[in-house]
Each structure stands twice: as structure tokens, then as C-alpha cells.
């Protein structure tokens, strides 16, 4: 039987890392991720894990060390946020292209400038085309669960790709909530040993990793990478089902709340989905037909499932916690792209909220639902919630 602990999102991440007991962790501290590595370093110092902790000089070095260690066949993890993720950027691509199943909790924080330590999704959205699987967490419980799920998904032989497990900086990373933890032995048995087919240290079957690859083969390798992340659509539900059996919690790629009867739907991710759910409850009590579609898996993007849910709705609002300067923000673009081929489709309105940690209040969400019902928004422009 597991136990119920009071944990922040950062502590929940460290707790799942402790249970995974990775062979190698290479990391550099950055707010608001620091508490993950601070807590995990204590586990290392106390002898609770066997991990080789590599204290590197920067995030670029952290991801480089992770690439080396994962290529050598070690189960490898790191964690970062914001500018740290940006500094990793070059090697983030290399990790995915080299097909290394590194799992990395990312504590989402605004990218400079001006400097800001608070939450938005600009850091992780800058990596959306890097080839990593990206999962978003609403609360510390999901952070804990998703990291376990990510490990199994990443290491699956049909996938072999790294995964970012995102959580909202401070809102989730520093908020204390109840988290149910599985028994160490249950986690250990479920994740099993990591036995990669090809490693640098397999001297009987020598391989080359990261060679020069020009116009003769590079394109084919990229094409295989496309297939690999598409395979995640097939493997994700299997892994999620296995984990659900252990935790009694569900992890659909997209989560529907009050959708069936809803005319107007908000699509969003992470902690904003929690606040939206609260407002959906309040408005439903007053007889309004509103629902929430929470995106858990952002890469690969489960467009087919989303289309089936949204195509009959009267209107859809997409709430993004990042901007894409000069165009529509990332999630809104995805939703519109997904619906484009449908003959009958709802208007999709785009909203940006919460940049640099600006709060998303229930009143903002109500404003969106009320505007949807009245038809007072314009599909050609982006609305900004909570900006002065």
C-alpha cells in the first residue's frame, strides 16, 4: 500500500526520481526547478539512491552529460526550467535525434527579457519541434505519476525518445498538495531494468553514435524519427493503462470534463485546466452548457481524438500560456489545424493568459465562457486575459 504525502510539485518530481533510482543524473540548479535537484541531491547524499550525480557547470553541459550517459546505456534523468532549457536547446535536439530515452521534469517559467522567475510556457514551447515527447501536469500528483509514465514510454523499444514532464513554475512546483505515492517496490517492479539494445559500452557489438550524416542518410534518419514519435500514440495508451492499474488514476492523452452536454468548450493545459474545471462546475450549477478539454500530451499532438470531441460544438476557446510573436499561439494553432478538414466545425477563439506568472482568475475564465455564449469574440484576433 502506498502512502499519502504533502508535497510540492518539485518534491513530487524528486520523489518519483528517487523511486526510479536512475543510473545517472546530471543537472544544474535554476529557479523554480532548484528544489527538485536539491531534494534529489539529499537522497543521493543519504544513500537512498545509487545514482551517479554529475554536478555540471551549465545546462548545456547537463544535457551533454545526459546524452553521453544515455548513449552508454545508463538510465538517465535531469531537470531544468526556463533559461536553463534554452541553454540546453542545441543538445535537446541531439538527445531526441540520437533516440535517447532521457526523462526531464521541466518547471515552466517565462523566458527573459525582462527577467522573470514565474510561470509561463514559453520555455517548453521553444522546444516543441525538438522531437521530445511533451506531457503537461495539472498538479503535484500528476507530476509524480507522469514522470513514471514518461520513463516507461520513453524506454519502449518502439519509441526510444526523450520526454519532458512539464509543471507550472511556483503554482505547481511550490504549492503543497496531497500526493499518493506508490510503494518503492511496486515502482521498481513496474519500471524494471533498463536494457537498451544498442549501447556504446557493448564491446561485442560496437556502434557509432552521432556521426556525420549528410544528404545521403540524414533525411531517412529524420523520417524514422517521425515514425518513432508517432509510435508514441500506440504505446502511450498501453503504458497509461498499466500505470492506472497501479494507481487507480487515469491518464488519457486528452481529458474531457463535462464535454458531452457542453455547447462551449475551453481547451487548455496544466494548472489552468484545474481553475477552468472549477469554473465549469460553478457555471454548470447555474445551468450553463460549458466544458473543458485538458491537453495532457502535447507532443505528439493527439489531433484525431480532439477533432472527434470538438467538431460538433458551438464554439471553442483555446487558452495559451505563451505567445508566438507575429502569429497565433501554439495550442490555438494546433486546435485550428486539427479542425481544418472538418465540414462543420466550431469557431476557434484564441486567448493568451498568464505570461510571467500573471494569475488566471476564475473571473477570467467566466469572461471567456460568457463571451463564447454571446458570440462576442473575433476569430481573427487574439484576446489577452488579465493584461492591463
Amino acid at each position, binding site marked *: 500500500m502506498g502512502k*499519502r*504525502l*504533502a508535497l510540492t510539485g518539485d518534491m513530487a518530481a524528486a520523489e518519483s526520481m528517487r523511486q526510479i533510482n536512475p543510473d545517472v543524473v546530471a543537472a544544474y540548479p535554476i529557479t523554480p526547478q532548484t528544489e527538485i535537484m536539491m531534494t534529489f541531491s539529499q537522497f543521493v547524499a543519504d544513500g537512498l539512491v545509487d545514482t551517479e550525480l554529475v554536478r555540471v557547470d551549465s545546462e548545456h553541459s547537463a544535457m551533454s552529460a545526459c546524452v553521453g550517459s544515455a548513449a552508454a546505456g545508463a538510465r538517465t534523468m535531469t531537470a531544468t526550467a526556463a533559461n536553463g532549457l534554452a541553454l540546453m536547446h542545441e543538445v535537446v535536439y541531439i538527445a531526441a535525434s540520437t533516440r535517447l530515452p532521457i526523462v526531464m521534469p521541466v518547471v515552466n517559467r517565462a523566458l527573459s527579457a525582462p527577467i522573470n*522567475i*514565474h510561470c509561463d510556457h514559453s520555455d517548453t514551447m521553444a522546444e516543441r519541434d525538438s522531437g521530445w515527447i511533451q506531457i503537461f501536469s*495539472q*498538479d503535484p500528483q500528476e507530476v509524480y505519476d507522469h514522470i513514471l509514465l514518461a520513463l516507461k514510454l520513453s524506454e519502449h523499444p518502439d519509441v526510444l525518445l526523450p520526454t519532458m514532464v512539464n509543471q*507550472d513554475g*511556483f*503554482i*505547481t512546483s*511550490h*504549492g*503543497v*498538495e*496531497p500526493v499518493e505515492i506508490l510503494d518503492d517496490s511496486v515502482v521498481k517492479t513496474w519500471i524494471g531494468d533498463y536494457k537498451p539494445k544498442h549501447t556504446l559500452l557493448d564491446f561485442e557489438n560496437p556502434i557509432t553514435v552521432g556521426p556525420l550524416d549528410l544528404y545521403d542518410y540524414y533525411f531517412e534518419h529524420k523520417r524514422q524519427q517521425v515514425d518513432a514519435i508517432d509510435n508514441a500514440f500506440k504505446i502511450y495508451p498501453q503504458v497509461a493503462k498499466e500505470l492506472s492499474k497501479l494507481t487507480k488514476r487515469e491518464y488519457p492523452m486528452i481529458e474531457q470534463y463535462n464535454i458531452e452536454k457542453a455547447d462551449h468548450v475551453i481547451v487548455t493545459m496544466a*494548472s*489552468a485546466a*484545474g*481553475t477552468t*474545471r*472549477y469554473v465549469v462546475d460553478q457555471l454548470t450549477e447555474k445551468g450553463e452548457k460549458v466544458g473543458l478539454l485538458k491537453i495532457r500530451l502535447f507532443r505528439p499532438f493527439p489531433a484525431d481524438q480532439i477533432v472527434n470531441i470538438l467538431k460538433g460544438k458551438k464554439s471553442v476557446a483555446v487558452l495559451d500560456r505563451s505567445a508566438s510573436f507575429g502569429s497565433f499561439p501554439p495550442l490555438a494553432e494546433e486546435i485550428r489545424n486539427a479542425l481544418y478538414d472538418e465540414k462543420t466545425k466550431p469557431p476557434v477563439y484564441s486567448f493568451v493568459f498568464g505570461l510571467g506568472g500573471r*494569475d*488566471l*482568475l*476564475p473571473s477570467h475564465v467566466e469572461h471567456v465562457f460568457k463571451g463564447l455564449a454571446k458570440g462576442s469574440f473575433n476569430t481573427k484576433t487574439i484576446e489577452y486575459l488579465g493584461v492591463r
Partner: protein
Amino acid sequence: MGNFIEIRWHGRGGQGAKSASQIIAESLFALGKFAQSFPEYGAERAGAPMRAFNRIDEKPITLYAPVENPDIVIVIDPTLLSAIDVSDGLKKDGILLINSKDDPKKIKTKFDFKDFKVYTVPASTIAVEEIGRDMPNTPMLGALSKISSIIKLKDLEEKFKEHFTEKLGELMVGKNIKAMARGFKEVKE
């Protein structure tokens, strides 16, 4: 007050508002209830005004926004009373618990808190006498336990022991628990 209760803490960095709000959440989890505890982080420095929040319910809580209309406001640092409006958004007849040696009636008149139930507890005096320095958060917790039905004193004591014995040592935990009990006894309406 229903099952869904929201608390806002006002203190200055380093006075333990964040820890106190965490102790409440942890004590309630142990009793099978649901709670959130989250601080508001600005520029993190000792002495700067800061806020922390609790949300409490019988069922899981999915709201992730600051508390706008608290049921209870707890002021750990009395110098904040003249610096900011600590009653901002506090519900009518809501509880205002203040660390002060003054009589609650005096504070009620001075700061025009007529719409609220005002309580005071000399938490700093208790802390200096019992703990040896001005760490008023534990007597404030004791006082909160007395004036609301949120949590029993013994549940708070147990969680405090569990959480802090390793960090503070048994002697210091004992002093804090005594300070908590005095806060419970000495709070006035």
C-alpha cells in the same frame, strides 16, 4: 463557514507564514481532508511583505489562483496593519487574527475593521518568552485552532513534531509546541 475555507496569511519574509500554512495543510491531509498551501513569491528577501494561502475542503480542490475573498486573514506582522489593507477582499463577518498585544476592540476601531470578527494574540511576546526569538507563527497556529473549527490543537502538535523534529531538534520543537498551546489560551476577541 462551509466546508470550503480560504485563508490568507500576511507576514514578512522569514517569519514563518509559509511554514505555518504548510503545517495546516499537512495536518489536514493526515485527517483525510484536502488542502492547498501556497506562498506568493515576489522578490524573495527577509523582511519584505509576503502572503501565503490555504484552501481547505472535504473534496479535491482544482482551483489554482490566489485567494481573493478569504474567510480568514491572519496577520503575523502587526506593522503591516498600517502599511497595507490586510482586510482587502475579506468576507463580511470573516475572521481577522492579528499578532498584537492590543485589545481587539482597540484595533477594530483604529483600522475600521467593523465588518469583521477581530481577534488578537500576543504571539511575538509568547515567541520571545518560549522560543527565545520573535518567531510568531506557532502561537498564531495555536490561536487559529482556538477560534476556528478547522483543526484541533493536538493534530497541529503532532504534525509539527513530525515535520520539524529532525530539522529543529526535540528541545526546540517542545518550545514551539508550548508556544502553540499559549497562543491557543491567550487569544482574545
